[in-house]
């Protein structure tokens, strides 16, 4: 739960502060870069791209904050933003007015593609970090693939404090 809210927090809580910092920096950098390039309004919107949103939910704390921010700015909520982008539900004059209104908040190709890849990758990487934190909690600090590394003759270890 901690790792889902904040990348690396699970490892930090387990006492592996070095690894926690690594997860936090790497995942936050990817998520922040994607969000800076794509903007919250259209990059974190389940009505626009539900599969992307599902991948972003891997980094739940960031995605929740981004979704709330995206709903708050621009005076148009996420559902209406999706209707404007998909050009449905408004008469032509209103559609044009809303498109002009949303223009500063919307990213276009190729930036939108780059943002989506970064955000989805960051969410999925955080899922990996969550699973790793769970595995380390169950094995007393050993990584997920500790069986493989043990077979290769790596020395046993524990916390990296």
């Amino acid at each position, binding site marked *: 739960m901690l790792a889902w809210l904040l990348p690396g927090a699970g490892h930090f809580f387990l006492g592996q502060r070095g690894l926690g910092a690594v997860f936090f920096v790497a995942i936050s*950098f990817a998520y922040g870069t994607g969000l800076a390039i794509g903007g919250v309004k259209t990059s974190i919107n389940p009505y626009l791209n539900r599969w992307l949103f599902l991948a972003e939910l891997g980094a739940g704390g960031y995605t929740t904050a981004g979704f709330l921010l995206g709903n708050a700015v621009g005076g148009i909520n996420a559902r209406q933003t999706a209707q404007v982008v998909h050009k449905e539900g408004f008469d032509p004059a209103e559609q044009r007015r809303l498109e002009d209104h949303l223009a500063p908040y919307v990213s276009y190709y190729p*930036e939108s593609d780059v943002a989506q890849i970064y955000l989805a990758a960051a969410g999925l990487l955080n899922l990996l970090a969550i699973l790793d934190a769970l595995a380390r909690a169950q094995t007393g600090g050993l990584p997920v693939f500790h069986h493989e590394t043990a077979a290769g003759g790596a020395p046993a270890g524990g916390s990296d404090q």
Partner: protein
Amino acid sequence: MTALPALLLAWLPFVHPLKLPPGTRLWMFLPLAACIAVVYRATRARQARELPRAAVRTFVHIVVGMCALAVAAYVLYEAVLRLTAG
């Protein structure tokens, strides 16, 4: 002279999308590959100090692998073009 500060003040990070300079889209692959290499290697590391060398090695593997795939796709594309032209 007042346009730039006004523009900077009007720009809010994460709210207003950044515009990438032309031609940078492909290079944006490198930081993402680095993040993926670091996180993947961190899940296999027993301690944080094992990480840098393994992460660099994985990063190089990813970049070389993607370049090899790009070259293979390009060669296939050219081959299909020549076969269909004849």
